[in-house]
């Protein structure tokens, strides 16, 4: 066994605390990406312009690619014989660990861009940190996803500025979108025991440490978009513990229906 793989070897033992922690963390990351992908894919064939349709679908596919790699790894590490499809299609809403932000409905185009801006401004530095994770496989997945999220961030930032600093109507809508989505961003940086253990082990970063950078990025964009940062108040959460909004159930029903109706079907 090489020195590199030996580093992450302790995490590979099934039943081991570290492995259980990592599975939980991979599900959080993977579910964020999977649910974001499903929501973005709802724009397919419905975006305001054909070029934007391709862009949103492209971003959805990036998220889906990251979700597949993360969930596959979670399934292997868990050791219960579940693959990416089992995890995506056969869990109920209470078993999903995504943040509430990604499951919120798309709303109008401004809401979709506000959600994407906040998510990408979080995923980009997070994946950047994880690219240096003590767990080699997670580091590899993150290194690839980091490049993709840089593009997502730029795309959402361009649109936020264009709409915020656009017409009266686009400004009104963009401001309403930012106000509506803002409370859900707090959950991204909430910490708990699992995150602290993984942080100590050098496997993951405590997301609270990413918030300053996130605020920096987001405030610059909002400023350029002539929008003001909403006041912090209500902080909905619970997604990491499987407590979701009703929107996730409807999303899962649509995402899982074919797989549940035809288990094991292939084409």
């Amino acid at each position, binding site marked *: 066994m090489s020195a590199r793989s030996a580093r992450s070897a302790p995490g590979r033992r099934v039943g081991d605390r570290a492995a259980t922690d990592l599975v939980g963390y991979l599900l959080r990351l993977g579910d964020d990406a999977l649910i974001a992908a499903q929501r973005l894919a709802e724009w397919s064939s419905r975006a305001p312009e054909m070029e*934007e349709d391709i862009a949103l679908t*492209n971003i959805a596919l990036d998220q889906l690619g990251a979700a597949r790699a993360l969930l596959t790894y979670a399934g292997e590490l868990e050791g219960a014989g579940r693959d990416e499809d089992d995890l995506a299609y056969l869990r109920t809403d209470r078993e999903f660990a995504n943040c509430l932000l990604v499951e919120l409905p798309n709303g109008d185009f401004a809401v979709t861009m506000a959600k994407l801006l906040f998510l990408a401004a979080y995923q980009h530095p997070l994946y950047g940190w994880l690219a240096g994770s003590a767990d080699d496989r997670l580091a590899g997945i993150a290194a690839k996803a980091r490049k993709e999220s840089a593009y997502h961030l730029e*795309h959402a930032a361009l649109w936020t500025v264009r709409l915020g600093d656009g017409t009266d109507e686009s400004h009104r809508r963009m401001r309403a979108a930012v106000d509506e989505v803002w409370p859900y961003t707090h959950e991204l940086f909430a910490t708990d025991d699992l995150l602290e253990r993984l942080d100590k082990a050098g496997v993951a970063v405590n997301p609270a440490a990413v918030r300053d950078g996130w605020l920096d990025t987001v405030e610059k964009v909002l400023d350029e978009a002539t929008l003001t940062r909403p006041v912090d108040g209500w902080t909905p959460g619970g997604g990491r513990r499987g407590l979701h909004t009703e929107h996730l159930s409807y999303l899962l029903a649509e995402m899982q229906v074919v797989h549940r109706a035809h288990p094991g079907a292939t084409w």
Partner: protein
Amino acid sequence: MSEQWPLWEVFVRPRRGLAHGHVGSLHAPDPRMALQHARDVYTRRQEGVSIWVVPAAEITASSPDEKDAYFDPAADKVYRHPTFYEVPEGVDHL
């Protein structure tokens, strides 16, 4: 949206050392977005390492009506082709 986004012509350089070639056009509201869209539409399958976008309205093109005046006069000027030289042996690419 009351009016359509402006049209952009897209040029992609397939790899280092080659020139940018015209690959098509697209609609976008501004230059940065045009670049992003060009990346999505024309380089999805690793077709390029560099992209140019140019507002289609900025391109001055020769007219089909001028085709005869522009291009026919070159037809009988064979001496413009460098084919009247003895190529030394061993020179493969001249």
